[in-house]
């Protein structure tokens, strides 16, 4: 009889912190994040990859954590909604512009789908040139793959535009600070 492998050790960088865990091989990444690492911000809405509530970033790419086994992220980097904000020098928390924008634009109601939208949109915004004005096509692309049953999406799209504008302003401010001859700022 073949020995059935039911558990396996993985090492994964979660929100910038290297973590080790032994996980059942059948666990989904969402199980490992929620039940293994206690990161319950990642929500499971359908477990068949349609709603997008469980979206996290694997090596920076939006990924349905209900469609990936935990063992598949061995050796990779995972960012959850808890990892979108960063610490400032005073030990406080600086939210990602899309997080601020969600609050400012009333882009969430029950909040259950919100982490999936935030991770997806954050990845989209971070990957683009912030100095260029965001287009409606870009907004639709970032917002269009996730389900929300509360908001009707209008304010989520608004938040997306708002965050892009914030990032554009701060990119502008940064390049202004680095003037006169920094070509790095816009990159």
């Amino acid at each position, binding site marked *: 009889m073949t020995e059935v492998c039911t558990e396996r050790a993985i090492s994964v960088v979660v929100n910038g912190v290297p973590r080790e865990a032994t996980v059942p091989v059948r666990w989904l990444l969402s199980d490992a994040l929620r039940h293994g690492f206690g990161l319950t*911000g990642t929500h499971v809405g359908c477990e068949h990859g349609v*709603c997008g509530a469980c979206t996290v970033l694997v090596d920076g790419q939006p990924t349905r954590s209900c469609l990936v086994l935990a063992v598949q992220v061995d050796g990779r980097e995972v960012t*959850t909604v808890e990892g979108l904000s960063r610490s400032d020098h005073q030990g406080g928390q600086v939210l990602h512009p899309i997080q601020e924008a969600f*609050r400012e634009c009333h882009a969430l*109601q029950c909040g259950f789908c919100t982490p999936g939208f935030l991770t997806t949109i954050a990845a989209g915004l971070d990957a683009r040139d912030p100095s260029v004005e965001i287009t409606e096509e870009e907004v*639709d692309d970032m917002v269009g*793959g996730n389900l929300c049953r509360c908001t009707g999406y209008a304010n989520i799209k608004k938040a997306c535009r708002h965050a892009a504008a914030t990032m554009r302003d701060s990119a502008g401010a940064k390049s202004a600070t680095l003037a006169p001859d920094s070509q790095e700022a816009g990159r």
Partner: protein
Amino acid sequence: MTTKLFGEPVRRREDARLIIGQGRYLDDIGSGAYEAAFVRSPYAHARVLDIDVSAAMDVEGLLAIYTYEDLTGPLAEPLPVLIPHPQLTSPRTGYPLVKDVAQHVGEPIVMVVATDRYIAEDAAGLIEISYEELPVVVGVDAAEAAEHTVHDDVPDNVAARHHQETGDVEAALAASAHTLSFTQYFERSASMPMEGKGVHARWDDADSSLRVYSSTQASTSVRAAIAAKLELSMEKVEVIAPDVGGGFGVKIVHPWPEELLVPMAARLLGHEVKWTEDRREHFISSAHERQQRQEITVGYDDDGRITALDVLVWHDNGAYTPYGIIVPINTATQLCGPYDIPVYRARVNSVYTNTVIVTPYRGAGRPQGTFAMERTMDRIAQERGIDRALVRERNLIQPDQFPYDWGLTFQDGRPLIYDSGDYPAMMAKLKVLVDWDGFAERRAAAEARGKLLGIGMAPYVEGTGPGPYEGAHVQVLGSGKVLVSTGLTSQGQGHETVFAQLAAAELGVPLEDVEVTTGDTRRFGYAVGTFASRAAVVSGNAVALAARGVKEKALRIAAEVLEADPADLEIDEGLVQVKGTPGASIPLRTVAVLSNPLRYAFDEAARQATQFSGPGDDSKPPVAVGDAPGLEHTDYYSPLRSTFASGAHAVVVEIDPATWEIAIEQYAVVHDCGTIINPMIVEGQVHGGVAQGVGGALYERMAYDRDGQLTNASFMDFLMPYASEVPDVDIDHQSTPSPLNELGIKGAGEAGVIPGSAAIASAIEDAVGRRIAAMPISPTELYDLVRSDAERVTNSSPHDSGAMA
């Protein structure tokens, strides 16, 4: 009110935790809990012959398996009929676990508890059940035919005949200049919140007490149900609704079997037990709504004014009637919307089918009623050659007709009396917003592009804020923090924010000082629940009243300290001060400290209230007779009857005659929910409602096959709108405050969804010139309809209508 908060688009208090992943939803609770899984009936109608659990017993990590035979006492009895009604003559409810006959696919038969969900499902998968299949009843037509029965002892499948009338409709129809009769269908959808249901229970053996978390809209009543079913004293049971990931009606039903079985298991096993519903379970075991067949006869005069309306509705209530006939009542009583209809009769026959139960989903019977009424208006307009807006305007209840008494009984058991509104102004705003009168040019421009453009409209009235009551407790702490609690629950509506706005505005404190708790029986035990757009109306007024009670006491205490008349005092930014006398003031937090005379000082602030801290009045006891220590107050608001919000939607659709894809070009909403506490939140509610209305009109349908199998029980197959399907919404507000409550609030939660199918059907019909008599409608169905011999229809435009009038 010195602090300007009421009516402001204040940013939500709840968002701070939700945007950083620190919400606390049901499945986030109890990481060490045992987990439950259920074996559910794979048949729509079947007798359970034998349950063989032997193969499951060897699964490592299995803790318990429960079947009906393990239920004792009240748990072995049928689940409660929550809302009895004299016309619900054959109410039926299931058991927590199937006793004998499963009545729909998904009904729970066995509960398995194991160390985790995977193992519980492993064991569940090894349980073998043998069944005797029974004939299946699906759809209202089959139920009415009653060739087969759902419940043996209900031979006609009719649970209830709900009839209401305002006069002799048959005589009025006979006397009408014109009559029309037609039949139409409305399909099933469901609330489908992003978070399904879930229950976590912790039994404290030493204390013989139970703490239950449930993703519910009615924690106080869940508590009462658990206490009754588990034979516990109420004070030994606490129920908390944590962050709830959407409700939209499905979570108002209770007790769900799992809300009883999970606590039962926790008690028997002496360990935390949790169950989190998965998406398939939600599709096949939680509630649906909306399926009806509507037979309508209307009488009207030459001008299109309705003289009599008679509707017979066959309403599919699914396998059981735990929530009574609230949905049929809503359809019957809200159908007429904003129209002045002289004689009206509604007969709703609520029938059993072997499908998931039907209980309120946002709108709760009103979308169907509005569909019936508005399609009737369109038909009258077409028959008489009158513009569709004009025929509606001619039938509107006028502002001077309020209060408008229908002579009917509403869903709260109180008289159906519209409190206030201005429907003509609302329709006028809508016509401007959508440019109704300029539509012909748009249509022509679209035709030049090879597209079919159509426009439709649908106004509605929504009974909101029903009683019996809600309450609130407001307390100022010595720290200055203000605690507000109400027993009513939240599922994303922003209650923490709007109730904080109300309390802060009444008390004169900064919003940041207010903390709101909802749906926690430890904090507030008396409540009804969140449904029928009632939170802002009923809990909102209760919070305001409770805060006012606190303010009165604060001013009384402060007046003694400041040696002033309470009438000369005001509270601003947390400071009680003599009006017009700067410097003569005392912080509210100090008043809170002084309100509680102390023997022991536990911190610096408390020193001020101790017995040697200052000269007191030795002639009086420290706490006056009839008074109580502490700066807090509990109050209740019990409305005389429901308030009536209103609105009107207009839709422009563009149809591609090559693919028959239906795109929404424009969606316009005029909305009147009385006084608005927070316009940002109200608009959010409208947006969300419209999205659900669009989903219900064009995409969502519970597709049962003839065997009672739900063939699209996943998000892959049941199509909920993504951002790409939901249009931008143009909103215009109107406010006719309710005269029934001091704040003038009417409630906004459900409104957005109500006229969606009616308005969209009207627009599609206008675009393609074929009668739309069933919703939802897909491109394929539209294609088939256009190619069929379906009735051709022509609408009059504003400029050529009225000629016949």
